[in-house]
């Protein structure tokens, strides 16, 4: 045991030295420590958090039928959706009316490329006009909002950061920056790049460090609608960082009850290498991931994941930084604001669990769930004489459990 402890200590010291040698220093001067017990999370009514809830069923036709919303973007007039199951980008009006679909059939067959499928899209300005940009095979295609192909250009050979997350000043976030050295190369999980030059780099590693490791050590950047700031969560840490165009700073350090926590050195100690699955199996309460974090005024949103599948367990939260009140999102109770329908599918399906909110900005949050969830909720309300608005009345009348998903637009209270 002593031997093991000594080994770990030496490893820690060595790796610490290595990282310090190359990576930038994280600013932790503004750090706040939060102690969060998921069991203490409270419920609330929808109206306590949201002023407005709008349901927009996406029109179901033979052509527009799709699985689930994997990516949602919008313009003033349109919702644009990517569905991985049908491998298609679908364009709907803001009222949910189907406009067009873009799938592989819209591309010319490229004889050199075997697989022309694509995994997402972007909305970019081309010639002062908003277009849908899709990269498939060796080409980048541009479509207008009626699904018409405008142009295609070959994918640039050099790394050009066009589709990366950007700050308003043009600084780009690179989550896989490679620093080539004469002897060896170093990668960074998080780097800030301005005018193709590196500003700062954090969390370095070498490829050989990761050999035989079944953990993924990177992290995720979350856009919460602030053009000058993103949130960042590094895997196997219960830390929420703020990322600006100039630096990374540790904003919130969260402590969970011991049963829910991974060991402090879980992400760095090589004894866990190749044993992650076993570890989670044995410690089913431990949160192996913290994810989908957004900041809206004083409310910090985040989710956790562990190996327990019980729906009783609370895993999505809103923490109020001012009042320290913890609310469980699954326990936000439908009320008249939401026409007594749930605002997320946390209680029945997995869309919110997997993706969190699809779009977050200071004015509105967007999420979606299946028609199956809609109809299940409606059935549970059957004997209560609920009145639905015109859109939903029509929806329940003409659609069924197999119709397309519904977009839920929430106007959060600014508290």
């Amino acid at each position: 045991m002593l031997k093991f402890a000594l080994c770990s200590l030496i490893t820690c010291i060595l790796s610490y030295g290595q990282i310090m040698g190359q990576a930038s220093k994280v600013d932790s001067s503004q750090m706040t420590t939060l102690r969060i017990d998921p069991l203490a999370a409270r419920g609330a009514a929808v109206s306590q958090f949201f002023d407005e809830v709008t349901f927009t069923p996406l029109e179901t036709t033979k052509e527009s039928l799709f699985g689930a919303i994997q990516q949602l973007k919008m313009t003033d007039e349109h919702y644009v959706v990517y569905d991985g199951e049908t491998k298609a980008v679908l364009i709907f009006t803001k009222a949910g009316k189907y406009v067009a679909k873009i799938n592989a059939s819209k591309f010319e067959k490229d004889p050199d490329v075997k697989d022309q499928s694509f995994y997402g899209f972007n909305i970019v300005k081309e010639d002062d006009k908003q277009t849908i940009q899709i990269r498939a095979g060796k080409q980048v295609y541009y479509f207008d909002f009626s699904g018409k192909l405008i142009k295609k250009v070959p994918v640039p050979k050099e790394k050009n950061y066009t589709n990366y997350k950007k700050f308003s000043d043009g600084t780009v976030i690179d989550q896989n920056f490679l620093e080539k050295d004469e002897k060896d190369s170093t990668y960074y999980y998080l780097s800030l790049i301005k005018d193709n030059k590196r500003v700062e780099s954090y969390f370095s590693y070498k490829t050989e460090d990761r050999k035989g490791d079944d953990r993924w050590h990177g992290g995720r950047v979350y856009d919460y609608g602030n053009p000058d700031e993103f949130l960042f969560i590094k895997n196997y840490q219960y830390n929420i960082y703020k990322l600006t165009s100039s630096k990374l700073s540790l904003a919130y350090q969260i402590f969970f009850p011991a049963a829910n926590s991974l060991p402090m050195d879980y992400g760095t100690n090589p004894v866990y290498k190749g044993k992650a699955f076993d570890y989670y199996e044995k410690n089913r309460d431990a949160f192996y991931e913290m994810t989908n974090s957004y900041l809206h005024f004083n409310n910090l949103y985040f989710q956790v994941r562990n190996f327990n599948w019980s729906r009783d367990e609370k895993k999505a939260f809103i923490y109020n930084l001012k009042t320290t009140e913890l609310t469980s999102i699954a326990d936000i109770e439908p009320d008249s604001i939401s026409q007594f329908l749930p605002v997320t599918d946390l209680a029945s399906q997995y869309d919110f669990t997997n993706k969190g909110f699809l779009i977050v900005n200071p004015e509105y949050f967007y999420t979606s769930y299946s028609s199956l969830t809609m109809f299940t909720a409606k059935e549970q309300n059957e004997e209560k004489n609920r009145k639905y608005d015109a859109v939903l009345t029509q929806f329940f009348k003409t659609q069924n459990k197999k119709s397309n998903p519904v977009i839920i637009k929430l106007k959060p209270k600014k508290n």
Partner: protein
Amino acid sequence: MSKLTKLTLAFLLSITCITLRAQQVNPGSVKGLVRDTAQNYVLKSATISVYKAADSTLLSYQVTNNYGEFNFKNLPVNLPLRLDVSHVGYMTSRKQFTIPADKNKIDLQTIIATKRDVMLNDVVISVPPISMNGDTLEFNAAAFKLDSNAVVEDLLRMIPNITLWGDGKITVNGKEVKNLLVNGKSFFGGDMKLATQNLAKNSVQKIQVYNTSRNQGSASRVDSTLEMNIKLKKGKDIGFFGKIGFGYGTNNRFETDGSINMFTPKMQLAVVGAINNINKIADNTGDLMSNSTFKGVGTNVEYQPDFRAEGISRPSALGANFSYNFIEKPTYELKSTLKSNYFLQDRNTDYLSDFKTTTSVNSTDKVIEKNQTINESSNTTQKFDSYYEYAKKGHNLEFFQEVKFDRGENNNQTFRSSTNVEDVLTSTNNSLNTSNNYNKSFRFSGQYQYSPYIITPKTRFRGFNAEYSLNTYNNESERLNITEFKSFTGTASNQKFNRKYNTSSDGLRQEFNLTIPDVKRLIFGSKNYSRLNFNLTNKLVLNSDKNINRVQDLDTLTNVYKTNAYLDNQIRTNLIEETPGLKIEKSFQKSLSNRYYKSFTIRFHPKQLLISQDNKSDRSFQNLKRNYSRFAPDAGLSFYNHQYGETSRSYDLSYSTKINIPNINQMAPLTDSTNLYYLQRGNVNLKEGVQRELSFRFDSNDQRSKNTLNYYVGINAGLIANNIVDSLLIDEQNRRTVYLVNANGHKYINGYGNIRKAYKLKSSELQLSLSSNFNANKNPGYTNSVFTFSTNLNTYTNVNINYTYKSYLAVAFGQSYNTSHSKQEAFNTEYSGTNMGTTLSSSYNVTKRFTLNSNVTFNKNSSSIADDINFTIWNASAVYRFLKGNNAEFKFSALDLLHQNTSVINYGNANSFTIGTQNVLKQYFMATISYYPRQFGKKGKDKK
């Protein structure tokens, strides 16, 4: 009698109707909402149970929905009721209420749930009857109030979602439980009844039901099966149960049996024995064990002696079953289990039969054979087998061995006479056969499967599967045959034989099977050259048999047995069968979130069959060497369609090719002329028969949670080219000579279907099941050199209706309808017959300890060439249980009360039809006394 049956039926139906109507009498409803006011949220999936306040009888239960609401219907009005709310981590909230009769409903509004504080640990916690623990549905035994002598089966009957079927199957929400475990391990060989009918309800903590899909997160649980685990209370995982019983009756009928079953967390041992002369025959330890169980005090339709069995048997049997888990809590990833079985059976059977077979010789002539058989046999069988299974992260090893000894004696006298259509006697053939035999066999098989525990896209080697099996046998037999054939017409001479046989045969069969999955990845790595999946398969069979026949005839002059130079022989056959193959698979999946999951797989398995058969004999004409080579592909299509919240259906279509090669006795037999009514001749030019079969199966599973309907149907159709068939020559003395020839045009089609549905009413349950199958074939053959097809159609249909009312009454109604029809085209002859059986069984618990059972079977046999045969068998019994724990039982049974068991023989085949009777068990009365010792948990700890 049929009047009585009808009356009883009418009476029972009326009870059903009354009960059905009684459901509507409780119009009361109660609703409410459960809220944790401290943390301000509603409790989803909290358990709400409604009891009668007076005696705490559970009336109904529900789980709150996503809004934290519950809503009960069909509750009694004007009666004080109690409602308990329970949820993991919460104290039980309790509410007393009465539904007013004038309104028929009550709204309990918000019920406050309070978190269970660590400090308040000593608060009495009442257990909810049902709870969800992750994906596991749990039924808590303590919440169900039952008699202290109740067993698990009684508990299962109390649970609305669970159905116990008449045939022993258990379904939960209509889905069949495939596996029943006790504390995570199979219980005494896995027979569900052994666990459900013996384990005391009071020793059970809870019953868990879950899907055994390893990948919990996967959205589609295509290959998941339902498993039930009985979790015993702490300290109750050690115990024993057993039985000792003795019965004696009229006509010297008797039965006696005893068993003891012991279990500890790691070990299980059962020893069981039985002797009787009432045709209660068990063929293995499992059967023996399941017939000596406690069965609780609930209603059961009692196990009956087999009145339809041929002859009268006096079986005695002894069995033992042992299993040891080296790992106390086995999982899929880690287990090590040894199971052993020993079985000894001694059986004496007297059999008498008297029947008449009519055979068409050509389009006008018929030969009618009358046959009387007297047979006495005794047989002793011993069997010992063991099975070992080891699994550890990707490695899976299994061994199985079996040794079997079989010693038997047989004494048979047959008197046969043949007449023609005009009823003129043409010949007689009487024979006496005495024989004894001693057979030994040994079987061993082993299987090793490897699949890497962690698979990354770079893993090239995805495992393999190797199987080996070995069978050896040694059979020795001695036989004496005395036959006298007399001819009354024509030129055939009378013949007499007195022949002794001494045969010994030995054989060894070895089979090697190897499968290497995903060969493409093994060779090319993760490079994706094609979406097809390739598996290499290889099967090698090595077989060798040796037969020594020593045959002697009595020389009537010297009265000494002399060797029969023709039949005395030694023959050795070596067979090598090698089948290399490549299995090609391609799968397509299509899914749409929360809508459907569909998968479609195409399989093509080309393989080459290479067979070499080498016969070496003392007779040179039997020295035949044959090689066969044939391309024998298998193929298949399967389609799975899961529609969320509606149904999941699977369709499977498969095609297979088999070849049947002729053996030496078909090609060049040594014809034994003692049996003149059946002489077999060979044909060295026989070719292999090639059988091609197409099968289809359709399964439908309901995904809804209420009033589910599940069913399956299947159909198999095939063609046999060059089938080896009989060319039969019958002369007017009914002497038959059979030549074997190849003939084309053998076709068959058979199908089956099953549908079951259960209606759980408030205090009663109605189960309906229907199963049916049919078999149609067209067989080519020759009769007296005329080529003819015979077409046959047999159908079997069974309908069962089971009705149980609380734990007082169980009624089972069964109707079977079997038809047979055969037609021979060339002779334009046709036979048909129907067998109908109507069974009405009922069991009525007069008091908790006194039960009356009755079982009536009405049989009707009709055929196109004989009068209808009708008979009714009525068995009844009265059972009284006494002593504390109901451990002792006195039973009086009356069997075949109407004295009508005649047991009819009635069957037809290609060109003949047989009717007659055989001796069977007949009326008797018997008194039985049994004692069931039972203990769960260590003594002294029992009281709590």
